[in-house]
């Protein structure tokens, strides 16, 4: 049964998500605990394309120190990361790579679009032939941070907002309905 679904998926649009059977048994009261754990242990993927990446590094540095909130363990592989912070411009060539990275992350996964470029293309909106005008054309985004580049405090605020969103059960992951088969 599962194999046929996989085969079906091969023929569809590559970004298509197919829910596999199983999982999601426990509900309500236990969910609160799980959401608390997930919210307090967001491991970011070390992914940065341009200037915002430097501010992300600043956020990791001593003065701002996002390890206080448990975001400390930056993983280089998407398999172990929880949140992908799109720090910088996404161009057409990068698009498939970003999509692939997002797809390869293990569920549950969250996305933060950091900076004007990731939100809309920012200063590179007009007259460019290669910039994707907003990372949400490629992958779904949970939290947006404006700025060019945003201050480290803004990134911290975004991460805390994401925490609150997870705790209240409103992320895209949590409200995703299984597709009708």
């Amino acid at each position, binding site marked *: 049964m599962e194999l046929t679904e996989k085969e079906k998926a091969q023929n569809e649009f*590559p*970004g298509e998500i197919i829910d596999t059977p199983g999982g999601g048994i426990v509900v309500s009261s236990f969910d609160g605990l799980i959401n608390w754990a997930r919210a307090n242990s967001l491991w970011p*993927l*070390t*992914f*940065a*394309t*341009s*200037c915002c*990446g*430097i*501010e992300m*590094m*600043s956020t990791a*540095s*001593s*003065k701002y120190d996002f390890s206080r909130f448990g975001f400390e363990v930056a993983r*280089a592989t*998407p398999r172990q990361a929880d949140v992908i912070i799109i720090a*910088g*411009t996404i*161009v057409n*060539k*990068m*698009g*498939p*790579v970003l*999509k692939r*990275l997002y797809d390869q992350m293990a569920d549950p996964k969250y996305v933060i679009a950091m900076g004007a470029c990731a939100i809309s293309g920012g*200063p*590179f909106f*007009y*007259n*460019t*032939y*290669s*910039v994707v005008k907003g990372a949400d054309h490629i992958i779904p985004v949970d939290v947006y941070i404006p700025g*060019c*580049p945003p*201050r480290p405090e803004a990134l911290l605020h975004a991460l805390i907002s994401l925490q609150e969103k997870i705790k209240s059960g409103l992320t895209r992951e949590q409200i995703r309905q299984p597709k009708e088969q």
Partner: protein
Amino acid sequence: MYSQTEIIKDTSDTEGELVINVGPQHPATHGVLHLVITLDGETIKKIEPHLGYIHRSIEKMCESLSYRQFIYVTSRMDYLSSHINNLGCAHNVEKSMQIEVPQRAKVIRVLMSELTRIASHELWLGAMAMDLGAFTPFFYAFREREMITEIMEDTCGARLTMNYIVPGGLMYDLHPDFQQKVKAFVKQFKHKVTEYEDLVTNNVIFQNRMKGVGVLSKEDAISYGCTGPVGRGSGVHCDIRKIFPYEVYDTVEFDEVLETAGDSFARYMVRVREMNQSIRIIEQLIDNIPEGDFQAKTKAVLKPPKGEFYTRVETARGEFGVYIVSEGGTTPYRIKFRSPGFSNLSALEHMAKGSKIGDLMATMGTLDLVIPDIDR
């Protein structure tokens, strides 16, 4: 839109060779550089850089932006030396329109450039140490870098992409606290450089991983067009601040740092010693900022005459060239940025061929690549 890629299972033609993609998402490529590496065991047989993962078509974009506008975009190219990028462009416009910049602006521009250079080298130090597996230097380096970003924020209103230098001078005057804060920074930084030396330079593991790794001879460095610390690490006399002094560089005393070994350690030493030279420049200028205007009187719309103009400045990574072809209009007809990283990167294959993967990281770390600068 996105083609689904097939997994190649056939291995018959590449027996014993491992083709590995390093990047675009890789902690050691400092951005989105993509290297396709052919390995034999751990030995690198071939490196093929693929660029364009952050190609934002800045050159095309600038053709439709006015002379005041396109300077802001250049901050986003080499974001670690954004002041110097701005300076290069402002310089070009000033040269073509023959604008005389006030002395105060000139001094402040040099001060800002040198502060940016220190900040950039600090970040490089932390990132490179992290490439080699040491976490702590990263935090130490960022501690001092943070002081510079604070100074920048006071005056320019931004931490990273400043957009402070405009054609004709500066955007605003200095923040009143500037001198005092810079002095405090200089005082602390002088003491901290020795700390870095203790922590990093004199570390045996570090030295063994750097010495004799990624050697680039002087002839090759010239042929590949390597400039900045990479060129100077190979003994090429290529500091634009010395060869073609701009602003007030001809009136301050500083040494061009030259090493002759051409290996990663030489490049490392060049950068560390360059920080000291920058401090020297700052110390000479900080008490001698002349009073006066910070901006020359310019027209609201800049229209350089018809012709071709080329300016060169020294960023933290090397020679940054701005080549503007003007048709006399309000926007440049063609603009070309000669980015230092692009040429430095082209030497990577030559330097890393035949070495191990670990050595590649050391080599790449000391090249100090900023990918948006390379792709533009």
